[in-house]
């Protein structure tokens, strides 16, 4: 007599074997919940992340830069779409995810609660924020859940393009007039520390990391990724002739890594709690867009039904 296979065992074997879990496969509820939380949070970050950069589209200093920036922000909207779709394969509804964002229940990346104050911020965001995002996301291309991994492949390709564009903006400014170079340095000063915080709390304060790594949702710890980012970024800043605003930053021959100064975790937690410079502004912008779009979504629905009824006749 054949034994019914134990689904948990099958799941564990698949994960261990680096196979992808697909929507129709059995999966443990905590795995599903963790993924929905992570993917929707990632989707929300793409959508909220449109706002700080969107802030400079109408003020971009050349037609070429304007087109590139607009296309970039549009890509972010596209990433949001793929990710909402990936989360939907786990049984979450887009409507509910958006409601959770607007109610404050769901989070998004805290980095977008910082303001974009000059054109150089378009460079800094591309270079540093997208750079940090890629560090986080490249390993996610091998994450155990299939639809998420495939979405990330596409997203990472575009993100790395965005990062190059951002670095190119910084390069142009750093090689420009003094005012432009100052603008670039000022942007680096403001974004550096918040970007380091993007990798999340220190490993010993990140309780979910172990489980996520076991499920192969996550592949590296927060601190590992943060170190990789610093190591990659310091030479890029040097090449630009810009100074990273950290007096404690220095190469550690023994470790083969850069040492860097202490992160202000109070600020991190305050921003997470909603006290960042732009938390309210960002959420209000999204809530407003959603509320003002209500009549449009309703009209589209009613029209589609009318069409359907007419077609039936």
């Amino acid at each position: 007599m054949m034994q019914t296979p134990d689904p948990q065992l099958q799941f564990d074997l698949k994960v261990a074997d680096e196979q992808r879990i697909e929507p129709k496969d059995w999966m443990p509820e905590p795995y599903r919940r963790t993924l929905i939380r992570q993917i929707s949070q990632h989707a929300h970050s793409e959508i909220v992340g449109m706002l700080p950069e969107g802030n400079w589209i109408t003020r971009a200093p050349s037609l070429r830069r304007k087109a590139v920036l607009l296309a970039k922000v549009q890509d972010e909207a596209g990433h949001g779409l793929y990710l909402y779709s990936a989360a939907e394969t786990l049984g979450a509804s887009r409507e509910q995810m958006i409601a959770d964002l607007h109610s404050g229940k769901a989070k998004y990346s805290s980095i977008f609660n910082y303001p974009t104050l000059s054109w150089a911020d378009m460079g800094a965001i591309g270079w540093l924020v997208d750079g940090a995002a890629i560090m986080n996301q490249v390993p996610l291309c091998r994450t155990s859940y299939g639809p998420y991994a495939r979405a990330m492949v596409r997203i990472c390709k575009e993100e790395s393009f965005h990062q190059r564009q951002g670095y190119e903006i910084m390069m142009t400014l750093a090689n420009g007039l003094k005012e432009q170079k100052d603008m670039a340095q000022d942007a680096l000063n403001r974004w550096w520390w918040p970007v380091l915080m993007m990798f999340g709390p220190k490993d010993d304060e990140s309780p979910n990391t172990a489980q996520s790594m076991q499920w192969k949702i996550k592949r590296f710890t927060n601190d590992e990724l943060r170190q990789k980012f610093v190591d990659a970024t310091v030479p890029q800043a040097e090449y630009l002739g810009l100074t990273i605003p950290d007096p404690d930053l220095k190469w550690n021959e023994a470790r083969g890594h850069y040492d860097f100064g202490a992160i202000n975790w109070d600020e991190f937690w305050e921003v997470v709690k909603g006290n960042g410079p732009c938390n309210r502004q960002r959420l209000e912008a999204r809530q407003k867009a959603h509320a003002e779009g209500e009549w449009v979504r309703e009209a589209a629905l009613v029209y589609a039904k009318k069409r359907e009824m007419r077609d039936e006749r």
Partner: protein
Amino acid sequence: MFDTKTYSSEVNQALCDYLLRLADSSLILGHRLSEWCGHGPILEQDIAMSNLALDLIGQARNWYQLAAQQAGLGQTEDDLAYLRDAPQYRNVLLVEQPNGDFGQTVVRQFLFDAYHYYLLQELGQSADENIAAIAQKSLKEVTYHLKWSSEWVIRLGDGTEESQRRVQTALNNLWEFTGELTKPDQTDEILHAAGLVPDLRKIQADWQNRVQSVLNEATLQIPTRAWMQKGGKEGIHTEHLGYILTEMQFLQRAYPHCEW
């Protein structure tokens, strides 16, 4: 770079003016659409409006480049976009009107697209090869624009009571800006005589038919109001354009002579 033709100074001057009209209308409408980015009513439509904006900005760049070369003063596309103030801008008034709600944006887009589509179709036949080439390329994009805006006009017009009221109001308010789209002036006449641009009377008829048929399907009323505003093509705008340019040009004005 274009291989530009040489025209009589009268024709060349009219041509440069005409190219700026095309470029400015595309740029300003693209600017307005780009204001929606991140604030659209539906994520998919946010993306669609960015697409439209990107197409229009791209078209504007082509027209500016041709205008700059045809004028022969060594200007760049960015000089033309960023260093002219409102009275030098030649866009039609329609495109500078505020976004309002999504319905108003859709109606503005449709009224312009219907004109833009037939205009580009004709410009694709221009005796000037550069004009013809840019127009043909743009027409592919604008064919989609017109499809998108027509569908939304119909969807909202024939949607709920509220959506119908909103788009009908938008239509009533924007109607007065449609007159100058197809009303020929001296520039149009000179260039038409030279075989470079179409007779606007033909565009007027095509525009009218298309608008009528889409509005019918959308169960909307064509406004009966006959008085039409004009001035955009000669540089006399509404109060909105100044604010658009103030924002758009700030960096170029505040930090002159920079590479970006």
